């Protein structure tokens, strides 16, 4: 993410954008990079899995799992970006998305009349659903509903409300939205959507997250794709307007840029684009064919896999047509991540086996990969434990020469980074989204405990309550927020101190002399782990009660996410 300055001009931020089209030469460069990358991975694999590299067998298995899990994530990214494809633009008539759509330069202003449908006779009837829950701030709805009202294509906006707060009904009326009182319905947001489906009749439904501000052209950019009778849902990019407000917001936003850019475009290319995040548009008959919107912590993903299994096609439109909020404080972020991770495991364990037979091969791979995304919690634990275990017990997972490891691993790493940077040209808003995304990486690995907790909860089949992600920045007790990273740092420091003492005073001279490099290497890994904890630690410090007096609201004293 570039400098904060890029985020200062609201007229730049709240503006339609589309990912750059894919040029022929870019495909060639990408092809070459992917070929080299694949080659480097094969060479690395042939080298890694050699009998002479096995040290302590169980530890070698664990280390191999962690290493190759990480590489498989990278490979999946490559596999996706290899299929990169952008849906054709709707033609000026707004009828069928022609395959040779006009080229639009993303840097040029909004697409004027292109693809616009102004009259109901031209196209389908459309409803915009947005939901409100107790505790959500009224002001947010003022902005969202006003923006929904200004969406150009004729539509009806519905506020699916269970706040029992008369001001919400009042606001809906002011903004020309239909207020649906939907209290006491199980299934959270999805439950309300399903109840509202029964009370409405529009053919197409845009489910708008209440913290998202839609742009006037949102429906115009989406509806043309429904001309294909087999299309069940159309997903648009999820982008944010509060990303520069805090470290956590930046990090959380950075984690999404590649996904809503080249990755989902690649998934579109392999017919696996999912409904995920915010602002998915559904065909009513599609939702009805699977008994309504899916319920669960990852309800959008549940819905997507069911629709795919039922044979519906999906479209990903790589365009910024709305901007919303990303969690700004650590506590909210951790809660959101726990919810997502738990929800994704739910899809993996419950929905995926059911749908498996009816999915295409691409979809099987794709959902398996989404379902295992949060295993990073487990692999991070492995990476944390292995060097500490070595320093205490001397158990070595692998008998590898550092030089050999570097020679084989560096090409993989360099090509991985090169491909990651190259595919950033297809981000939806490259000016604000390109970069090394180190904050996102730091926070993702820093949150390992949350992802691990989600895995445990999923394996133990323990439910996590559905709470909408907080819309305001909150603070909490520093020691509670920082417990996990501080624990890791303390344990690491203590272990290194113990190891140094052992070497200076206890171990035999011969053993000390021959294990210098191995020990230094392991201490290096410990240091890397400590660095990876720094993001979460910093966020905890910034979001603690003590640093942020006033302004932010205090979080409830409910147990931490992890």
């Amino acid at each position, binding site marked *: 993410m570039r400098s904060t300055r890029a985020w200062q001009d609201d007229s730049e931020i709240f503006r339609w954008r589309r990912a750059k089209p894919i040029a022929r030469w870019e495909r060639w460069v990408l092809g070459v990079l992917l070929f080299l990358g694949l*080659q480097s991975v094969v*060479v690395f694999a042939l080298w890694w899995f050699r009998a*002479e590299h096995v040290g302590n067998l169980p530890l070698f298995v664990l280390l191999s799992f962690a290493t190759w899990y990480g590489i498989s994530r990278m490979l999946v990214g490559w596999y996706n970006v290899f299929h990169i494809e952008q849906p054709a633009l709707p033609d000026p008539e707004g009828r069928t998305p022609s395959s040779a759509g006009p080229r639009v330069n993303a840097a040029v202003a909004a697409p004027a009349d292109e693809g616009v449908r102004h009259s109901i006779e031209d196209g389908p009837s459309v409803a915009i659903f947005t939901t409100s829950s107790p505790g959500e701030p009224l002001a947010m709805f003022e902005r969202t509903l006003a923006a929904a009202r200004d969406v150009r294509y004729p539509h009806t906006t519905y506020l699916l409300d269970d706040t029992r707060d008369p001001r919400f009904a009042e606001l809906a009326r002011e903004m020309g939205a239909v207020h649906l009182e939907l209290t006491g319905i199980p299934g959270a947001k999805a439950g309300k959507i399903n109840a509202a489906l029964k009370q409405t009749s529009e053919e197409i439904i845009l489910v708008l997250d209440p913290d998202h501000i839609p742009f006037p052209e949102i429906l115009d950019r989406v509806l043309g794709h429904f001309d294909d009778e087999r299309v069940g849902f159309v997903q648009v990019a999820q982008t944010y307007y509060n990303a520069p407000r805090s470290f956590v917001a930046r990090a959380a936003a950075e984690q999404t840029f590649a996904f809503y850019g080249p990755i989902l475009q690649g998934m579109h290319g392999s017919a696996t684009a999912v409904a995920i995040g915010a602002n998915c548009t559904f065909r009513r008959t599609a939702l009805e064919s699977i008994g309504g919107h899916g319920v669960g912590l990852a309800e959008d993903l549940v819905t997507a896999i069911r629709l795919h299994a039922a044979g519906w096609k999906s479209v990903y439109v790589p365009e910024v047509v709305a901007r919303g909020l990303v969690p700004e404080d650590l506590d909210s972020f951790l809660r959101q991540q726990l919810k997502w991770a738990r929800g994704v495991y739910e899809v993996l364990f419950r929905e995926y086996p059911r749908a498996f037979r009816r999915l295409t091969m691409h979809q099987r791979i794709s959902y398996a990969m989404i379902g295992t995304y949060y295993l990073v919690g487990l692999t991070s634990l492995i990476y944390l434990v292995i060097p500490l275990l070595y320093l205490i017990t*001397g158990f070595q997972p692998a*008998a590898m*020469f*550092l*030089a*050999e490891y*570097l*020679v*084989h691993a560096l090409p993989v790493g360099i090509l991985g980074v090169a491909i990651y940077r190259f595919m950033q040209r297809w981000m939806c808003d490259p000016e604000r989204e390109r970069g090394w995304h180190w904050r996102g990486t730091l926070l993702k690995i820093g949150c390992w405990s949350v992802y691990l907790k989600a895995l445990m909860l999923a394996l133990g089949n323990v439910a996590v309550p559905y709470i909408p992600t907080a819309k305001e920045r909150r603070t909490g007790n520093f020691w509670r927020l920082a417990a996990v990273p501080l624990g890791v740092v303390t344990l690491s420091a203590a272990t290194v101190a113990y190891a140094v003492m052992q*070497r*200076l*005073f206890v171990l*035999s*001279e*011969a*053993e*000390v*002399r*021959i*294990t*210098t*490099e191995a020990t*230094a290497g392991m201490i290096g890994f410990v240091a890397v782990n400590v660095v990876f904890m720094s993001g979460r630690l910093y966020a905890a410090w910034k979001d603690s009660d003590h640093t942020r007096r006033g302004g932010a609201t205090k979080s409830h004293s409910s147990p931490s996410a992890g």
Partner: protein
Amino acid sequence: MGARRYLRLGYDSIEQRLARVGQTMSDSEGTALEKTRHGSRRDEMQALFPSLQSRAWLAHPNRMLFGAYDGKMPDSFNGFTELESQLQYRFPIVSFYQAWGDRPDEAHFPLRTIETIDRLGSVPMVTWEPWVRDFDSTLRPNLPPPAEREYASLASIARGDYDFYVTAWAREAAQYGKPIFIRFAHEMNDPYRYPWGPQNGNRPDDFIAAWKHVHLIFQKMNATNVLWVWSPHISMPWFEYYYPGAEWVDWVGTGVLNYGDVAQWSRWWTFHQIIEKAYPTLQKLGKPIMITEFGSLTSGGDAVEWYDHAFHDMHDKYAGIRGVVFFNQPRDVTLSAQPLDWSVMQSDRMRNTVRMVLTHSQ
């Protein structure tokens, strides 16, 4: 594949730099140890064996030199130090094995292990095994395919096919500069053991030619710090036909391992029974004799008695023996999947017997 070559080049340059960095780090850690522990093993060794760093003295030592190999070496010296602390003895010779080849543990002169042994104040002995099939075909297009290399491999070594390896190794050995025992192509006369044996069409002349060829390369590279240990298998007759000649050899060595009753071909043989017939031949060569692999299993007899008698016989009958290297391998799987325990620490009695002998030798 060109990529492999580039990897290799990259590997070599990184590896050598890292090895140097590693040695520097290890040396500074060693300096710190000397401070915290007020002294080092090297100081003790120098007091006990003041001439140990002299090649001339090592070629004609005026006292018995004990040594040890431990199964965990060279990755870990834990087993070795455990052995030393149990026996309350510091071994002047530390023995380990290295195969030829392109694998990372084979590709270079084992500088880190050898430097470590040197820093500990002992002399390294490398049993240097020409496993010619371990060379990578993609890196060595001039070599025949691995399966074809082992037939008459000693002749091809003598012809210079493996000079690329021997020369580089010799150059590094010369750079190291301090005494090293090298036991090249040991048990060359045993047709049941290693690929460089007679079963693969390797004749005694081929062995002698290979030995001389390797030796000459070392001389050319100025690696005169090396002490050459010629080490046949004495249970096979006519081993003396493999002797390259007095000017090419510094020590004669042989393994004396009592397998007890663990194998069909073996039974309980005492040290005396094993060496008796061959000893006069060995002695006639006029070189100090080293028992390069010394040990007994426990199955089929009394191993404590075996060690006790062995040391007595050495003293009484085999005064030409100037070196004994314990084969401290508690998990030897070269004979069978069932690991064999050659350790001398299997019982208090055994350990005490060996310890007494070692203590008296000082």
